[in-house]
């Protein structure tokens, strides 16, 4: 039997959105569609605290994901930690629902005795290792991010190293916003590895606006399209991925 696929958006940004719809609302919609939204807020070395990055937390919490605020230098480790934690959290959510069906309402992992908990956690660990994963990476490339982009690129290649070590299959795609003409620009179509990433951020023309909402909306459409196609051509799935969309 085929185990399900975990779908995630990983949003990397350094500040508040200032164009288009409300990203928090879109994130809530995505959660309803089974897509987790994780957000990493990247600070400048000179910046302090979490000032102005409230939105980061709000998007993640309404998107059922995890948020983390870091300095650019610590990005690599954080990106992989957030992705992994979010996977576990999503799977745990599913397992918790199953538990509730078996044990009745108001029963969660914490309500089990420590001995029984161990078995449940082993199942969750197993699933996290073997389920297929699709990550759509959305990178904010507004003017203030320019200096941080080399770090972002490094962190993403690093994420690819981590995820490739899993037993389950991985698919990544990379989009940046704002784009030249549209809100979002495609940088890399669905691919199992991010090695092809080098140089992707070179030809950027940094823009002033940060249309986070529209960018998330576009991400949702990309997932819709992908899910439809997989639905139709499930049998030819491996073929499709190899011809490189």
């Amino acid at each position, binding site marked *: 039997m085929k185990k399900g696929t975990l779908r995630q958006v990983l949003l990397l940004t350094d500040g508040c959105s200032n164009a288009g719809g409300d990203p928090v609302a879109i994130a809530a919609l995505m959660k309803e569609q089974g897509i987790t939204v994780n957000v990493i807020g990247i600070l400048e070395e000179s910046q302090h605290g979490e000032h102005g990055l409230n939105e980061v937390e709000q998007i993640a919490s309404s998107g059922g994901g995890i948020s983390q*605020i870091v300095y650019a230098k610590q990005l690599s480790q954080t990106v992989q930690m957030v992705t992994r934690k979010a996977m576990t959290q999503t799977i745990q959510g599913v397992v918790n629902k199953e538990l509730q069906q078996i044990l009745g309402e108001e029963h969660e992992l*914490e309500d089990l005795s420590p001995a029984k908990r*161990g078995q449940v956690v082993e199942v969750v660990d197993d699933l996290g290792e073997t389920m297929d994963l699709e990550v759509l990476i959305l990178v904010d490339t507004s003017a203030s991010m320019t200096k941080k982009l080399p770090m972002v690129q490094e962190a993403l290649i690093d994420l690819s190293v981590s995820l490739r070590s*899993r037993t389950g299959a991985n698919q990544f795609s990379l989009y940046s916003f704002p784009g030249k003409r549209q809100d979002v620009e495609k940088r890399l179509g669905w691919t199992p590895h991010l090695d092809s990433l080098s140089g992707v951020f070179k030809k950027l023309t940094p823009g002033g606006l940060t249309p986070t909402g529209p960018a998330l909306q576009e991400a949702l459409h990309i997932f819709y399209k992908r899910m439809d196609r997989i639905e139709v051509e499930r049998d030819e799935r491996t073929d499709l991925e190899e011809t490189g969309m």
Partner: protein
Amino acid sequence: MREPISKKQGCKLYNDQRLIGKWHKNQYHIIKELGRGATGTVYLADTKAGLAALKVGQDAMSITSEVNVLKHFSKVQGDHLGPSLIDVDDVETTSGTYPFYVMEYIKGEEVIPFLRSRGGEWIGITIIQLLGDLDRLHLAGWAFGDLKPENLLMTGPPVRVRWFDVGGTTKLGRSIKEYTEFFDRGYWGLGSRKAEPTYDLFAVGMIMINCAYPSRLERKDKDNLKYLLTQVSQTSMLTAYSSVIKKALTGSYHDALHMRKDLTELIGHTSFSPEKHMVKKRSPVINKESATVNRKSYKKRVRRQQKRSSGIGETVLVASFLLLAYVLYLVGQIM
């Protein structure tokens, strides 16, 4: 691991606090905080059976995951494979219910300062001990994962290195759960993050480098292997080990035993003259009497030897024989 800036408030226990487990009703008396990890805080606690280490976290998932690993170890025959698990329970506080587990309290010295204060041969001996444990862990089907000096302690006497934080321990063949960049071969572009013996052995090589470079190094854009090996060749502390370190970093050792064998032979054939890296501690007085062979005091002698000036070749010769004997003795102890 570096602390991320925003972190949800975990469970804070206070010195002298008494707590009773929700499920098993065991009582614990918190003495002090021992350290913080990625998944929780470890406290020294007094129990009915004596001192123990109590780790409290906020996330039942990750705490239970660690408990699972500790439980597996208690099934593995043999000593020293991680601290033994004593109890698993929840603590109910005013701010919520938090999961915790209690394990054996391992008391000891930090590894890097210990090794830096001793001679170069101690690096080898400690690593030999560590490799013996790693081999048994690998045979049991696990990789340590987040192998680094912070997760190790020097216990004794007799001097013995032990690990105490098993948070990153991963089943062989899976992806590494937790890592620290400097010790991670993925970070250096020298391999995957798959849990396999070679992953741990890479980290062992980096621990050796860490001894000579306590502030650690940062990766370069390319040629990281060449860069690391250059750093190794530039410090007298590691000269003797350069071939072993190279093989560990390139994944040439398929299991811990091979690396251990190479190291054992190497220490047997090398005379570690203390003056190379102990220049500042040299004292002008030569205590000739200390060269007398005395079985009971040889351990003490080895230690004293590095603080003493040893211009006389004879002394060095006798000392290296003693060392060889001691290494053989230690190896015998481990087997």
